[in-house]
């Protein structure tokens, strides 16, 4: 954008180049009549032309120094391709609030809770009445003479940094009152919020916006899925000729048969958690029960079983898990995928999990809660691939959640004497970095050091310990570690490679220690 003074300077320079004998001093006739009036008119027209030129290409738009103006121009260019910028979303979840009395509680619309470690606030989006009978939310009994209710909240700030893991303690925010309040904690992991989409991400989606939105090529698959599920982070397609694809090799010669594709989806940045409720079945051993979970129970293709719980009267019971067995569950449907082994079904909608756990024979629960972590929308996306309207008749597309590699990081920071640093912000930045690593990339200690040096620190003490645990489809945990660069290894017989496996980290797995 050219300022009025810049336009005047440009016009003066032009006139004096044509005729160096012209006097354009303030108050001179030529200055008053030509330079001033001319620049006033030209300035608006010049800037409008520059705006139009900027909209001709993203390269030109990106050269502007005003970031807000760049964003606006790129939004306008993207709209020509029917692509709109993904706006930020807030992390949501359920908080288990404990109170000491069994009575009615009334919560206002903006009831606020606070998480001190990450300095974030969480609010209700409506008013609630909490009662043991009736009311918007039921007041239940806890095991220790207290009572609790499950309160839906959302983060006050949008973005990825407000996600809470299960069990994170919250307090009442300042000036917030709740009589008989005892404690509050995240009942399950919160959903992952989303930051405003960057220009780089939006520009990369322009290509998808131009592509045919069918489920044929990797680009078109991603374009179609992002149209329906804007939060999808990555789509990796493994087809004929790829070693990672095992389903197509079930023949005498072990060679690929055509038509089969595994589609690995990462639908959120960070892992999400769910609680699945089911009635237990009898188990062979006394003092044991089991539940069998399939996609119909929710959280299709979940990664891990976090725990099994039940309520026994006023007591919350944590059941010891004795065995987890993975299998295959093929629904009775017109179209299904070709699955033979439990390894092929793992992390897909065909995954069946049998969980055996201990119970007290004198108090067998009628219903248990199984807490799992997972990638959302796996079943919905699989149903899309099998739907009559979208499926490729000659192909078998199996949708799976990306194979997770759970990362832990230990960072030691040296501070200058007398200084402090907000380690929570550093932790959030490392969390965003690791959970945003693209398919095929590694976790680099140098990138984490760079993140730390954005804050007022003296140095990062090396070596930095990076550890990863890959939850392989065969059920065996594979550990990797590095002081430099954590790389997904290639083990295609177990379908593990950079095409199928991605890094995940939770805030509690990023350990930061400081010293002065």
């Amino acid at each position, binding site marked *: 954008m050219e300022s*009025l003074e810049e336009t005047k300077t440009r016009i003066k320079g032009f006139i004096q180049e044509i005729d160096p*004998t*012209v*006097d354009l*001093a*303030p*108050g*001179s*006739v*030529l200055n*008053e*009549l030509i330079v*001033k*009036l001319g*620049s*006033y008119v030209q300035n608006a027209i010049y800037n409008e032309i520059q705006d139009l030129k900027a909209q001709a290409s993203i390269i030109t738009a990106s050269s502007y120094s005003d970031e807000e103006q760049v964003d606006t121009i790129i939004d306008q260019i993207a709209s020509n391709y029917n692509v709109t910028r993904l706006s930020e979303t807030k992390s949501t979840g359920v908080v288990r609030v404990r109170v000491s009395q069994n009575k009615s509680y009334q919560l206002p619309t903006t009831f606020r809770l606070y998480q001190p470690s990450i300095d974030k606030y969480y609010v209700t989006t409506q008013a609630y009445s909490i009662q043991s009978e009736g009311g918007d939310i039921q007041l239940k009994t806890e095991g220790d003479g207290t009572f609790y209710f499950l309160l839906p909240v959302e983060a006050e700030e949008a973005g990825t940094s407000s996600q809470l893991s299960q069990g994170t303690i919250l307090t009442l925010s300042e000036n917030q009152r709740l009589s008989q309040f005892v404690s509050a904690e995240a009942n399950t992991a919160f959903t992952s919020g989303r930051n405003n989409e960057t220009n780089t991400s939006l520009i990369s989606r322009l290509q998808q916006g131009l592509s045919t939105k069918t489920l044929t090529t990797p680009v078109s698959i991603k374009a179609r899925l992002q149209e329906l599920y804007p939060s999808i982070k990555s789509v990796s397609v493994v087809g004929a000729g790829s070693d990672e694809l095992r389903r197509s090799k079930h023949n005498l010669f072990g060679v690929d048969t055509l038509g089969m594709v595994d589609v690995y989806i990462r639908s959120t940045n960070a892992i999400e958690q769910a609680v699945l409720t089911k009635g237990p079945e009898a188990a062979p051993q006394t003092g044991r029960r089991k539940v069998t979970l399939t996609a119909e129970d929710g959280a299709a293709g979940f990664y891990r079983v976090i725990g099994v719980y039940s309520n026994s009267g006023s007591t919350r019971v944590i059941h010891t898990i004795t065995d987890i067995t993975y299998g295959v569950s093929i629904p009775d449907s017109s179209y299904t995928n070709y699955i033979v082994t439990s390894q092929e079904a793992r992390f897909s909608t065909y995954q069946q999990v049998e969980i055996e756990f201990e119970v007290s024979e004198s108090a067998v629960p009628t219903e248990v809660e199984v807490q799992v972590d997972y990638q959302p929308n796996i079943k919905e996306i699989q149903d899309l691939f099998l739907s009559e309207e979208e499926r490729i008749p000659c192909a078998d597309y199996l949708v799976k959640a990306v194979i997770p590699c759970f990362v832990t990081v230990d960072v030691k920071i040296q501070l200058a004497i007398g200084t402090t640093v907000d380690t929570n912000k550093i932790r959030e930045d490392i969390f965003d970095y690791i959970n945003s690593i693209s398919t095929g990339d590694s976790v680099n200690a140098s990138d984490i050091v760079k993140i730390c040096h954005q804050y007022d620190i003296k140095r990062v003490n090396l070596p930095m310990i990076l550890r990863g645990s890959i939850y392989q489809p065969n059920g065996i945990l594979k550990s990797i570690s590095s002081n430099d660069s954590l790389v997904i290894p290639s083990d295609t017989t177990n379908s593990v490679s950079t095409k199928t496996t991605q890094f995940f980290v939770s805030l509690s797995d990023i350990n930061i220690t400081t010293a002065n």
Partner: protein
Amino acid sequence: MPISSTSQNYTGRLVDVSLLNFSQNQTVEELTSDTKSVSISFKPVSRYCSGIQKLIQRYTVYLLTELGSQSEDPDFGTLFITQLKNRQNNVSQIDVEHFFNVANLKIMNAFKEYQKENVDIPDDEILNSASLNSFEVNGDSVYIKIQLVVLSGDNTTFLVPLPI
């Protein structure tokens, strides 16, 4: 400021469009003694000017432009005309002197700043001082006589405006 002679030699001079009407053949005495109303206008045959003529025009334009009247240059001009107009038919000598002094201070500061930035201005275009010599109020008209003193002083040659 006395004018010692006239000239038509514009060598090395920056020129402006002449707004004040002069006869080509007037003598120095006629030029300096001839007092009459000046209306700023473009004639059928445009002329260019430099030197004292140009300086007088610049000063006049600056003085008579109402401050804030130009949206593209809101700081250009003075409050001289605005304040006279606000007084309407109730203008006194003290008012005119005061209004002029305030306006003149602003013009002098602006001119001196320009002269400091442009070191190659000829001496007869460098304004040293300006003062209100006399004025006359007649109905809704005010006639003022302003003396400009330039750096060249008594050796000032008047450059006669020439047709373009």
